[in-house]
């Protein structure tokens, strides 16, 4: 089962790679751009911590840890679930019919049937960062937290993409919800206060993507660890539920959106 899945995946990766080679210079630049984009952010925080040493209790090492987690979960989810951010488009343009015809889990197959080769740049970058800041002792915890954060990112993508079932043209909105959540997750959790912090740990799950994992790696707290795992299970169940609820609507042909 797993081997079969990986083989299918290798095929998708090959397709993505061949397409990329068609525009050779763009291909090279694009790979570099992925890394470059991450580097710019690191420089930003270097400048920041050079001036302040401490932002809301976080030091440079914590920030690098946050980036290691974010780039890894972002990268892994784009390599293995390349259609992550295209759910709205697929629903909206009626391409879902193709997946409905397959005798497989619809959501899973939608997600894996594309691979974004460029995500590999993020994965490599995340691994390098992790090497720099991570102690060997916390490796297993780190891996569990990366998986958790990948699952939350995926759930956010599924939830925002499922908007298309209910509102038709939701491509831009869905993408922006995803990117917005990601950008909220790119700052130290400790700077947020009060209601905002509460929101970031509930409605907008940005806190659990990066902030809570970093805090856990700084000093382990069993309560927060299980809370994180519980949250992953919860949001993933909600996301799956919403998707299939939408799918029901799609199948019964209630979609108001008409394509010409």
């Amino acid at each position, binding site marked *: 089962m797993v081997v079969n899945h990986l083989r299918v995946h290798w095929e998708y990766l090959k397709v993505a790679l061949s397409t990329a080679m*068609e*525009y050779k210079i763009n291909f090279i630049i*694009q790979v*570099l751009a992925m890394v*470059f*984009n991450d580097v*710019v952010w690191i420089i930003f925080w270097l400048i*920041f911590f050079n001036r302040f040493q401490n932002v*809301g209790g976080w030091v440079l090492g914590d920030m690098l840890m946050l980036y290691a987690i974010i780039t890894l979960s972002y990268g892994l989810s784009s390599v293995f679930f390349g259609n992550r951010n295209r759910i709205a488009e697929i629903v909206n343009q009626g391409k879902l019919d193709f997946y409905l015809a397959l005798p497989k889990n619809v959501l899973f197959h939608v997600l894996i049937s594309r691979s974004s080769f460029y995500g590999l740049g993020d994965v490599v970058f995340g691994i390098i960062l992790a090497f720099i800041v991570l102690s060997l002792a916390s490796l297993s915890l780190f891996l569990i937290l990366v998986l958790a954060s990948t699952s939350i990112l995926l759930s956010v993508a599924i939830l925002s993409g499922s908007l298309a079932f209910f509102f038709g043209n939701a491509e831009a909105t869905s993408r922006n919800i995803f990117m*917005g959540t990601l950008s909220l997750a790119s700052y130290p959790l400790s700077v947020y206060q009060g209601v905002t912090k509460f929101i970031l740990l509930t409605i907008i799950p940005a806190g659990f993507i990066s902030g809570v994992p970093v805090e856990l790696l700084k000093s382990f707290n069993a309560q927060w660890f299980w809370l994180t795992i519980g949250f992953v299970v919860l949001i993933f169940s909600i996301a799956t539920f919403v998707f299939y609820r939408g799918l029901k609507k799609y199948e019964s042909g209630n979609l108001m959106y008409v394509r010409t």
Partner: protein
Amino acid sequence: MGKFSGLSRMGFKTGIVYRAHFFVSLIKIPLTLVVFFYLWRSIFMFSGEEIIQGYTFAEMFIYYVLSMLVGTLIYCDVDAWMNEGIKDGDVVGDFLRPVTYMKQLFCQYFGLRELTFLIEVIPIMVVSLFFLNVPLPSLLFGMLFILAVFLAILLNYFFTFCVGLTAFWLKEIQGIRRVKTAVMAFLEGALIPLTFFPLIFQSVFKYLPFQYLRFVPINIFLEKYALSEVVVLLSIQTVWILIFFFIAKTVFKLAFRKFAGAGI
């Protein structure tokens, strides 16, 4: 004049078709401001300093409000339009109009700016004035700010057009555009005021085009410069516009020859 109003009307109207894009920014802008608000509040509280790199907390927040405002006004993705047109060949439609390619795209871009001003910038201004207590500069600096933003609109166009011209050779320039976006966010001063960089960097930035897109207009509004400095800065800004204009003009000739298969 008719030629240009016609083309800018098309930019305006196309913008209306894609108005969903504008509503998205109604969420995006407040969200970004919330992030920066908390980030800086926490920093000011922890450090206990009144003024950091030349900005009070209030000014720092206004800096980001203005950054959103100016950024929205000068937003330019003409390079993406060019990339599309060249990839699918529809660019020939532009070549069949009796107006130069650079002027055509400029008019459409400008028409879109007008729409942006009406439905995006005015709301930001109203909210800033009435709810965020953004203090207004003196009349003189207010006028200079408007001038600087106007020049920034031109500068960003000619710069972006130059970036877009690479598509005539590379066909696909997504990668280049990504690098551009990352570098610009930094060097314009959109992520952090440029006063955070070491002084040597800052003096280099003065002679690069990027700070004139955001950082300089914002600081004119905040009256961070003496009048004589503003004059120098606006002159450098103008020189960059001219430089990119001439690069755009010259390189377009080569790009067109390349497109039309010259020299084979």
